């Protein structure tokens, strides 16, 4: 009689453990912090631009050389070929892991007003550090 009771208890205990584990997994999965864009908010505080590209309407680079990225001054300096159509340029930022860019780049951007350079803000993975980068475009001159 005692043996039977122990067997039953063991069976119920394993079922109970399984149920608790399932609930724990389900609850823990729904607790990951996600921002308004559906991106994970992580613990990373790094916040910088690692590379920058500028494409023309033919989706080919218009840079004459590598961009100069100053992560302290938060500036990007890029020289483009003579005759580049500055009204239709497609900027591409490479960011540190988990960071994101604001505002989002959804298409060609008008860089023709060289006196008023465009700016984008890099937001760190933990969404607590924000750095605004300014893109200075210059045109190759004869």
């Amino acid at each position, binding site marked *: 009689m005692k043996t039977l009771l122990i067997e039953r208890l063991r069976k119920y205990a394993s079922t109970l453990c399984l149920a608790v584990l399932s609930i724990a997994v389900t609850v823990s999965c729904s607790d990951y912090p996600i921002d308004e864009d559906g991106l994970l908010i992580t613990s990373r505080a790094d916040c910088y631009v690692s590379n920058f590209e500028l494409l023309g309407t033919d989706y080919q680079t218009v840079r004459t050389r590598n961009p100069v990225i100053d992560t302290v001054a938060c500036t990007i300096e890029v020289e483009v070929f003579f005759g580049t159509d500055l009204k239709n340029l497609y900027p591409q930022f490479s960011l540190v892991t988990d960071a994101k860019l604001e505002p989002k780049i959804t298409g060609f951007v008008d860089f023709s007003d060289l006196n008023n350079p465009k700016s984008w803000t890099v937001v760190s993975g933990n969404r607590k550090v924000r750095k605004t980068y300014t893109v200075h475009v210059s045109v190759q001159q*004869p």
Partner: protein
Amino acid sequence: MNALFNKLTLFIAIATLLTGCEDEPYQVPEAPGGLQNDVIKRSIGPNMVGEFIEFAYAMANKDVQLAEATVEASIPGAEGTWLEHRSYHTDGGGNDIGIPIGSPAVTTGNQTTVSFSTDTNAATLRYYYRVPEAARGQTVSFTFRATDRSGRTVSYDAGPYHVSRMDMALDLVVSDTESYISIEDMAIYSAEEAAAVPDKIDLVYLYRTIPNIAFGHAIVSPASDETYRPDVALPAGVNRSTKVQKAWNIRDRQLARLQFGVFVDDVDFQTLDLSNAPNYAVNLREEAGLWVETQDGRYRAYIFLNKLDNSVGNATISIKRYVL
């Protein structure tokens, strides 16, 4: 006991494998009786006025020899439409070998006919339909018909096929002396010729080597800023501002005649938006292209740069044009 079980399992597995791998006897398919026919369209891409739409028409009757093959087009083909009087097969070297099966085709109205004069039970004839001006923007259909010597007839309907509204001009050479491009005329003019038709000149070609900048080959509007057309003395009245946008990786097969399966079609021009495009393009590259819209908004075009020659400073271009 365990060993016995393992042996039994292995035996069953091997037996299953052997049974599963057994070849089923192959039987050569029986050819259907009577007169048969089939058609494939060989040409691909947009069907353009002045160009060929090519078909291969196969017909066979294992019992009775063939008498006649006819193709009827819904719109009569232009001069040059013809049906092969040779039946082709491919030899071991990949060469098409044509065997004459009758006299050359006769075209009457919208029908092209070949009469068989040799004893032939099966043939594949090629049909080349040169798209006429009347078909521009229309659809065209074809009825392929074969008749055997017993008088039986079989037919195959192909299409309808849409005919593009585009025009095409290939391998126009632009240089310092022949530098004025007219989209309306799909032609290249010298400065003297351009002076006679200034309202038709949409673009100017130039090649320059300028220190410190990458200028090279350029196609610009007459109305573009002078910095983009250095040392170009425009003839009087040549002053149009044509929108130009660079393109890359659009090596249209009909313009480039390269291996790439890319085609610029009517829909590309219908959806093209050059409202924000500049009126010049410098530092051009071979095998690149330019989307163009004329100042009056009447024409859109795609200019493909077939060849750029830095040694003599000229370029070979090909144009597809769409009338809005």
